[in-house]
């Protein structure tokens, strides 16, 4: 670097591109408040305290429920940003379509249609844009879930990062998956966890890996067990640790899982060990946890194995609180992940 010392010593932006600095004491939103952990839950709680949700129920769940002429109507929305936009096995379009479809599906709702909002940065490659839209189009066709409406905004260069997608979805459920869980109920995971998170981390940190995102629409899978399970929840940001803690807190039960039974691809295990990252906290985009009575567990697992051979029972519901992991040596509490997921240094 041949920058002169006198230039460097002036306390101003050297590149001319830095945004203005805030005052030190001003409260600002931090990146970790969007990472699916405790901080995000607190931000959402504060944000939603400003609204009324009328007759809608389950407003803190994946989709909200409204009874309309004796039909169970479910409604959900989500915005998608991801770096990089294209990653092994998918792109942001796949996440945006599947995420909303899955939020409806885990409540037991058959998705009827999806909206698509695009916020595009000036200068964004058209071929990338159309590749992403093609992904959405193909998924929509395959799943038989139409794109019912949409909106497009183009923003000045630098004011958004390439592309943001918002999708909303509406669906109807014959049986809403909101049944109370009880001690003795079994906890099932629908496939190997953390594959999406691992694929993204490997791409972001330029590590060789054949792990692909697990992102996919889950309606077909959930529909196959909808009559057997009491509740389902898709595993997203915050991973299995976050989903299980949410269930334990909401249901005021203890969830005990057996570490050795958690489905994990060998390569995911290896990469998480190399990076020093907890696989329990890694994101999925096409996996879910469901809870059913013990007598239905085998049947549910058999149905789910048609879609993913790694589906299995990982633990059971007990009286108490917290999520407990039974390791090879002893029991440990699995806490709600907090902060950003960062690789270890040494």
């Amino acid at each position: 670097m041949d920058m002169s010392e006198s230039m460097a010593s002036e306390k101003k932006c050297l590149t001319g591109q830095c945004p203005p600095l805030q005052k030190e004491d001003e409260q600002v939103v931090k990146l970790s408040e969007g990472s699916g952990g405790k901080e995000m839950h607190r931000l959402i709680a504060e944000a939603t305290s400003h609204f009324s949700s009328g007759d809608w129920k389950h407003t803190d769940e994946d989709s909200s429920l409204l009874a309309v002429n004796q039909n169970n109507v479910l409604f959900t929305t989500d915005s998608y940003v991801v770096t990089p936009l294209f990653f092994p096995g998918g792109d942001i379009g796949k996440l945006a379509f599947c995420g909303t479809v899955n939020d409806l599906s885990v409540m037991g709702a058959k998705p009827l249609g999806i909206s698509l909002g695009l916020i595009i940065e000036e200068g964004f490659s058209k071929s990338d844009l159309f590749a992403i839209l093609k992904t959405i189009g193909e998924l929509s066709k395959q799943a038989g879930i139409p794109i019912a409406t949409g909106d497009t905004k183009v923003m000045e260069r630098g004011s958004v990062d390439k592309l943001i997608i918002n999708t909303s979805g509406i669906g109807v459920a014959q049986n809403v998956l909101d049944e109370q869980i009880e001690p003795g109920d079994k906890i099932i995971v629908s496939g190997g966890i953390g594959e999406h998170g691992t694929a993204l981390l490997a791409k972001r940190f330029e590590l060789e890996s054949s792990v692909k995102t697990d992102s996919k629409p889950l309606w077909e899978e959930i529909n196959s067990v909808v009559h057997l399970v009491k509740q389902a929840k898709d595993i997203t940001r915050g991973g299995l640790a976050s989903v299980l803690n949410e269930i334990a807190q909401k249901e005021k039960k203890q969830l005990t899982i057996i570490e050795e039974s958690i489905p994990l691809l060998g390569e995911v295990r290896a990469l998480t060990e190399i990076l020093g990252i907890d696989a329990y906290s890694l994101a999925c985009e096409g996996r879910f946890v469901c809870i059913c009575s013990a007598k239905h567990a085998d049947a549910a697992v058999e149905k789910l194995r048609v879609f993913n051979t790694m589906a299995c029972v990982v633990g059971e519901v007990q009286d108490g609180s917290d999520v407990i992991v039974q390791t090879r040596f002893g029991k440990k509490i699995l806490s709600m992940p907090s902060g950003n997921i960062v690789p270890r240094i040494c």
Partner: protein
Amino acid sequence: MNEYVQKIEDLAKEMGEVRIMEVCGGHTNTIMRYGIREVLPSNIKLISGPGCPVCVTSQYDIDCMIELALSGVKVATYGDMINVPGTKMSLKDAQAQGADVKMIYSADQIIDEKDRVFFAVGFETTTPMTARLLQQGITVFCAHKLIPPAMRVLVQEMKIDGFIDPGHVSTIIGEDIWSELDIPAPQVISGFKPEQLIKATYVLLDLIKNKEKEVVNEYPEVVFSKGNPIATKIIEETMKVVDSEWRGMGTIPQSSLAPKDPKLDARIVYKDILKNVVSQENKECRCGEIVRGMIEPRDCKLFGQGCTPENPQGACMVSESEGACAIAFKYGKSLSE
């Protein structure tokens, strides 16, 4: 039951209190995650050592990087470092205020960014990558620490009966360095799986019982006697050994590295920006005693009370992979609580 747990129990019956330090934060993570302390007999104490890069980085160094970032200098550093609180804020706070702070996993990610300063932290494991950046003409603010000089201080001050030596550090510096250290306590180099750590503990207890001071390599699949000669060579070519201030341990002679080329040493290049940096450690935070193994995380009154991984008051609460407090917070809650 693991066969070595049984063997440890048998050995422990014939011994008084034994103080073993696991130097590496990665080892602390495995020990806590699998509940290894709970399966060991009560007279065998595992004490967490200083092996967490962000924990031992001095407050002053962190404040310097924040000052640089807020002055408009582009900076980069490894994961957890951006969350460590400085005197007024963390690099993450500086980032939220608009400073250009890049979080990286590998130094290679900034090898073409000659206008970015690399905040180099970590032990011997990460120094070869920094050396590579220096070869490519990247400016470095060097806060690398060397483990062996710190162990020499700890063995005297803390009455440690034996050390579990860090596995990753040993892959770089090799097995022989530990023997040359000539400290009055045996050492076992271990891998990071729970079974490996339990076996290492058994081997170490056996050495302690027999009053042997030797070094045993229980991680021979990746740790060789001379380490990694390519890595040590580029370190020697680009960096020199200097005295360094450690959080909680004061200045340890010959315990850090600095770029040989002053034009690539950010402490020199940016001395005008850095001359006004004044640091003050949070007086209630006891990270300094924790990295020395003097107290347990729970002995600090801030632990869990205002100091949590999402809002860390001290460096040890930042890294869930290597920081003693963050690991204790994540895995240490007892089931009866």
